[in-house]
């Protein structure tokens, strides 16, 4: 609808909207995170939910203990290879629409412990990540900024058309295969449909 017409109607006391606007407004202003912290970034996440940097004023009212009731998983901390299948299982148990924020260097790519024998080099090897927050640990303001970025992303998702989100497309998977414990490494070491090692072009 034309913005000029809309503001004219607003002045007369008639407010118009679209289903898409209301739907996305509701979704983005009530994103409930899953209570899921792994390591040091979890402390920063807890600090963000406390009085000084309150996350609840953005709609993350409660951190749900059960994945069945959550729509956001903030992966905060180093994901070890031993823990990785459980993280993916929890992600699979969350109902659509669901989002993932990879908080901190360890969740993005393994972080300072990347060469460790038990460190998964980034949770985006197995589940799709919507927002990455760099930092070690990122400040609470950075987590708030990431939350707002996620809200903008949710707000901009159309309901119809090819850009519609994953939960509205019938053939997109909402559960991802859980890796098994192999003899030397996880099997498979990454999910090749959603992640590929970045290739570097070096000019010689």
């Amino acid at each position, binding site marked *: 609808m034309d913005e000029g017409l809309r503001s004219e109607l607003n002045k007369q006391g008639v407010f118009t909207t679209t289903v898409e606007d209301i739907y996305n407004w509701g979704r983005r202003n009530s994103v409930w995170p899953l209570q899921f912290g792994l390591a040091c970034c979890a402390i920063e996440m807890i600090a963000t939910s406390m009085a000084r940097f309150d996350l609840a004023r953005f709609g993350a009212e409660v951190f749900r203990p059960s994945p069945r009731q959550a729509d956001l998983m903030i992966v905060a901390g180093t994901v070890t290879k031993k823990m990785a299948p459980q993280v993916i299982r929890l992600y699979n148990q969350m109902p659509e629409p669901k989002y993932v924020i990879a908080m901190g260097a360890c969740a993005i790519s393994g972080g300072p412990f990347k060469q460790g024998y*038990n460190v998964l080099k980034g949770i985006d090897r197995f589940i799709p990540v919507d927002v990455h927050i760099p930092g070690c640990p990122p400040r609470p303001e950075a987590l708030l900024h990431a939350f707002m970025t996620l809200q903008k992303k949710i707000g901009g998702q159309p309901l119809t058309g090819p850009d519609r989100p994953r939960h509205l497309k019938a053939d997109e998977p909402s559960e991802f295969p859980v890796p098994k414990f192999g003899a030397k490494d996880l099997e498979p070491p990454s999910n090749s449909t959603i992640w590929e090692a*970045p290739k570097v072009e070096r000019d010689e």
Partner: protein
Amino acid sequence: MESLEAIKERIEAAVPGAVEIVANQGTAAEHSLALDHASAVRVAEFLRDDPALKLDYCSNVTGVDWLDSVEKVREKVTKEVAGESKEVVEVREIETPGYLESVYHLYSMELKHGPVVLRLRTGNRSDQITAPSLTPVWRAAELQEREIFDLYGIVFENHPDLRRLLMWDEFEDHPMRRDYVEPDDYDYEPTPHDEVLDKARAHHTGEGDA
């Protein structure tokens, strides 16, 4: 607390079995006692219960991997060469077989002294990898010996619950050993250096910036 030599003498008087002092060359000079498998548990009980020592707190148990080492020694030897004896410099190789070791740090909460460091060595690194567990003496050693079993491979006898701690049960290697080869899972590194730079060079065709 009395000196390590005095402790060693009292241990040898009280418990039959050999105890050896392993000197520490560094500035810390924390010399340790190497125990043998047969008498290790009784020596540990003596250290814990003796009224002058009362070492009741096992603060740390850690593992060490000593690789098989070959040392080349050059020495002058008189040899018969072409009918006459000559001084020849000969290179001899001394092979020291490697072993795994668990190191215990003991303190006394009651008498407020310590540390006394114990070392338990295995036979070698491949087939004789057992050592007696000191968990029946100090409960604090339980999880730490599990970690050593997981990361180094020392099988502790009489441990109440010996299974892997940090790695998953189906894992088949011991990550902290010197010869551990990690799975080839090289991912992009923005600023590689040292071993990671070697991995980067092996994976990418081109030299890139050093």
